[in-house]
């Protein structure tokens, strides 16, 4: 197996004449946390949408574990171990925390189309679901409906649900956006914790979080890769400094 779990080749997308992403080559190493940063409008969200099939690329290829997945459907990639999180918290509001997680586990049972069977068959999954909730500190919330939970808990529930799918590759879209300082710390720790044994790609503006978590960084600018590498190198790259931090090289060295 190749060292790279996910690669893109010359990825490109054209929104009615506007090239939002122009020839991006990404290489995501297995088992790392990979951050995508860049100025606003650089095309980060768009790349993300391409990877998760919410947009179709105009050109280029996406290769996952050696398979070309360029033309797969969203549900298909989920079944092959790529799961994304959303910017706004994505839970099933009127289901309990337990049911939320169980929904992720349920597919494995192969009974999801069985409209003639009782729901009781799902109870065999309850123990595992509880364990998953435990991982993110939500044991006490198992019977609470998601709407009734505070924001931070919802975020945790969402991650627990995602983890229940045992994804090989997790895609996180600005996981700390809109959070208070306390929550940011907690979520950062949680991401660190769950990164064991899997690969994570995240879009993030909070450089503190990126510095703490990311093994590798890709900087996008105007739809193109501007720089790549670990935080130390990237953050010292003069081009990045100018385009992203907004400081010229002289200022930085001064």
């Amino acid at each position: 197996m190749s060292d790279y779990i996910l690669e893109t080749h010359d990825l490109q997308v054209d929104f009615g004449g506007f090239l939002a992403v122009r020839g991006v080559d990404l290489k995501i190493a297995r088992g790392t946390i990979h951050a995508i940063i860049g100025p606003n409008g650089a095309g980060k969200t768009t790349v993300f949408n391409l990877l998760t099939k919410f947009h179709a690329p105009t050109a280029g290829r996406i290769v996952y574990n050696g398979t070309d997945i360029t033309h797969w459907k969203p549900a298909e990639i989920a079944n092959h171990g790529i799961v994304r999180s959303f910017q706004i918290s994505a839970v099933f509001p009127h289901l309990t925390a337990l049911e939320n997680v169980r929904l992720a586990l349920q597919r494995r049972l192969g009974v999801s189309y069985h409209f003639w069977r009782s729901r009781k068959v799902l109870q065999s999954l309850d123990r595992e679901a509880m364990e998953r909730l435990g991982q993110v500190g939500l044991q006490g919330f198992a019977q609470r409906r998601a709407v009734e939970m505070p924001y931070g808990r919802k975020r945790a529930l969402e991650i627990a649900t995602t983890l229940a799918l045992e994804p090989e590759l997790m895609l996180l879209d600005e996981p700390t956006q809109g959070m208070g300082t306390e929550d940011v710390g907690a979520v950062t720790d949680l991401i660190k914790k769950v990164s064991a044994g899997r690969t994570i790609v995240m879009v993030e503006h909070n450089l503190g979080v990126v510095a703490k978590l990311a093994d590798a960084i890709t900087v996008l600018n105007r739809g193109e890769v501007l720089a790549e590498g670990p935080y130390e190198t990237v953050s010292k790259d003069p081009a990045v400094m100018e385009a992203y931090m907004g400081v010229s090289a002289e200022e930085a060295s001064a």
Partner: protein
Amino acid sequence: MTRTTTASSPASSPASSPAATAAAPPLLRIRDLHAWYGESHILHGLDLELNEGELITLLGRNGAGRTTTLRAIMGMVDRRTGSIEIGGEEFISKPAHRIAPLGRIGYCPEERGIFASLTVGENLMLPPAVGEGGMSLDEIFAMFPNLREVQGRMGTRLSGGEQQMLAMARILRTGARLLLLDEITEGLAPVIVKALGSAIRRLKDKGYTIVLVEQNFRFAAPLADRHYVIEHGKVIDRIEGAEVEASMDRLNHYLSV
């Protein structure tokens, strides 16, 4: 009408220091403001004051009620009581759509409020003028060069940063002299944050009066004349811009930055 006394255009009125206008009534005075969303009581007797040409920030943790304060000024809450005086005139019982024109206010909401079904150009031209002396399109494009290229695109096809600029730009056009800006740096790259910082400084120099709600204290600190710290819908502290250095401990405690 007290309006005539304060209706001079921001561009032409001289930047006034707080001391100089101490005798004149404050441009915005809020006393004992309470606000509700449905049954939930969010603001519990908030007071604050702002003179013409000043820039203040509202600081506080998530959910403290800063956004709600701005929305209450704009009449965008379900119910509000207390007193909101703008230029000496009472606004508490005015209907929402009269507030912006009468108070010459420009409001930039937290979630940016770019209209998906309008082009960038239409978004820009949407808010009606509330007074003389709004910025011209050229001035606006000079301040936010990115916007010039994307004018024909639909509003929500913009990236987050472009949307934020658009949201700012569109209220500068209207001739408002009191700007209420909510979390304008959220989700923005440092380079843009920097650009916004200098834009705001320029606005302040032009004599605009600004209320800034910010999470990003480092951004707000050098700009502000005064900071209000809000917690549970009340002002719990007030720190003059000059005292910030000395009050860092207090601030850290409030905001746990």
